[in-house]
């Protein structure tokens, strides 16, 4: 019995380790190494002919790559390839993400100083593009865009929902064809949509108008609305349809009164995404709605301004103030797109149980 003491095991409380995480000290050392590399890269940019942020990025990348190769000398071929390729992929990803991040940043930095309180409510009737930035505004363009987008939504939302219902509920003989056509239609160049409406509506009514612009936007908006509607309707559980049939509902009643109401906010999302897709389209409006300088609330009567055409027109003028105005208009337009996206995301989560 006395052997128990001999057998006494020293109980060690295991401290949890995470071997896949780098320890603090190593993280700190890495940060220092990268900082040193950045300084060296900066020095090289200063001394040699390489210039600009792109030159700095290139030198820094080459340094990191060399360091990776150097460090992975003795860890075997597979692991060293892994380390090197990972570095390259990371750099590629950075290069892929930089342009649009740069666009967001430029919009804010270049568009910001043209904004003032009256900017959203003024128009360009008495302001020339070269006037000081505290005059005039983008109000007429916002109204014009809003009118066109509203008409386009009124046209495409029912059609888009019908397409979605066809693809998920009715599932007729043409299901595959319709799905294929909708997907292909989303690739129709925006200028072709503009040309189409020009040869039909504008030629027929003999007038450029907001309505023609709205029709051109509808052509571009329909595929987005239809596809999103289909995606949303697909999420409706089959049980719901079965239950409604079991209660004796016919297909039309179960579709209209059970399936569609459950995805109401999803269908709103479809409309919002469609609007976000077309609100910045310039090319079709160039051929259908043109632009004007004053507030206008009648979309059926002559040219009407819109956000993208406002920016485009100012860019054509190309003076310092007109370009500053173009950036401000773009910033407002981007904020509208962003707001639409956030709204779509908020609503999108609602239907999911």
């Amino acid at each position, binding site marked *: 019995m006395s052997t128990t003491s001999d057998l006494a095991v020293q109980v060690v409380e295991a401290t949890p380790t995470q071997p896949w995480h780098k320890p603090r000290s190593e993280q700190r050392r890495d940060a220092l190494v990268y900082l040193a590399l950045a300084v060296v890269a900066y020095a090289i940019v200063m001394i040699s002919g390489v210039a600009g942020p792109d030159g700095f990025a290139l030198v820094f990348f080459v340094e990191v790559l060399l360091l990776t190769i150097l460090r992975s000398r003795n860890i075997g071929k*597979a692991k060293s390839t892994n380390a090197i390729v990972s570095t390259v992929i990371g750099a590629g990803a950075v290069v892929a993400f930089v342009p649009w991040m740069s666009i967001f940043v430029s919009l804010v930095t270049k568009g910001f100083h043209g904004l003032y309180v009256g900017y959203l409510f003024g128009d360009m009737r008495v302001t020339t593009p070269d006037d000081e930035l505290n005059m005039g505004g983008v109000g007429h363009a916002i109204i014009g865009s809003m009118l066109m987008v509203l008409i386009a939504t009124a046209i495409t939302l029912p059609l888009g929902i*019908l397409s979605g219902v066809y693809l998920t509920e009715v599932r007729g003989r043409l299901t595959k064809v319709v799905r294929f056509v909708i997907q292909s239609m989303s690739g129709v160049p925006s200028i072709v949509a503009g*040309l189409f409406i020009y040869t039909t509506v504008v030629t027929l009514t003999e007038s450029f108008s907001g309505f023609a612009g709205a029709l051109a936007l509808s052509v571009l908006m329909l595929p987005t609305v239809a596809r999103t509607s289909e995606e949303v309707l697909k999420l409706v559980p089959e049980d719901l349809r079965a239950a409604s049939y079991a209660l004796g509902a*016919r297909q039309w009643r179960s579709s209209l009164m059970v399936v569609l109401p459950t995805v109401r906010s999803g269908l709103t999302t479809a409309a919002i995404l469609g609007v976000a897709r077309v609100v910045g389209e310039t090319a079709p409006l*160039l051929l259908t709605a043109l632009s004007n300088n004053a507030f206008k609330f009648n979309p059926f009567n002559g040219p009407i301004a819109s956000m993208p055409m406002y920016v485009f027109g100012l860019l054509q003028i190309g003076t310092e103030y007109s370009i500053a105005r173009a950036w401000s208009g773009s910033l407002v337009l981007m904020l509208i797109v962003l707001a639409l996206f956030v709204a779509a995301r908020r609503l999108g989560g609602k239907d999911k149980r």
Partner: protein
Amino acid sequence: MHVVYSTGDRIFRRIVTAGALTSLIVLALIGLFLLARGVEIFRDMGPKFITGTNWTAGSGDGIIPAEFSIGPMLAGTIVTSLIALFFAVPLSIAGALYMEFFAPAKIKSTLVSMLDLAAAIPSLFFGLWGVQVFSSMGERWAALTSHYLGWFPLFNNELEIFGRSPFIAGLVLAAMIVPIITSVSREVYSRTPRELVDSCHALGGTRWGAIRAVVLPFGRSGVVGGAMLGLGRALGETVAVYLLLNLVFKYNFNILESEGGNIASLIATKFGEATPYELKALLAAGFVLFLLTLTVNMAATAVVQRTAKAQS
């Protein structure tokens, strides 16, 4: 299963079918109208509409005959789009792989939403950004390329003026299509069966080993489809190219020289002051562009839908 539909059902199904067929009808109408309006040009110009080199409205009195050919613009469309694809595809693959397999879980969802937003940036902004922000950098790259690779005809530039070239327009188009290719690729990569990747790791493979052995082959056709969707976009882009390129009617395969254009920007440029006959030529050009993009998009759709089906 045999289903019996009531009268109400039949009416309902008919209405829904009619609604769903509008997209089909609209697509057909676009083609028909452009063709009907442009057919006169196709008849007058013959194959020269595609292969010729001139775009002249003529002098009206018939002394200088009108001559319309989209050859140089068609070439410009293809050249700028190919440049865009050349840069966008590798970057998008790197971006998609990074988001799916390398990015820390914390920032992954942020990146995905930002990518969605990036895909919705109006192309006008890429033009604006290209002209105002990027072009000085692009010119520097062009000058370097010409300096070191100028002996190669593609990069030859005798004039040493590097602004507003197909090269820069192509780079901006690349930036424009990266979001769409990245998001399609990422989605395909995310459908890679987890157990295959895990078994690669279990066998002692590295992360790159697993990607090369499983993820890339699995996602290949999806990436091809995404790239073609991007190509379709680049082929039909109007305002970005319009703002970035001087429209010059010349076959320009020296991509660093400051001349070029594409079909869409031709339409945008000439539309304002076109004579009625020239307008028909523009509609004919629009028809060619429509056919070109539709072909590319249909092929892309077929590829994407087939892979999605095979993988689900």
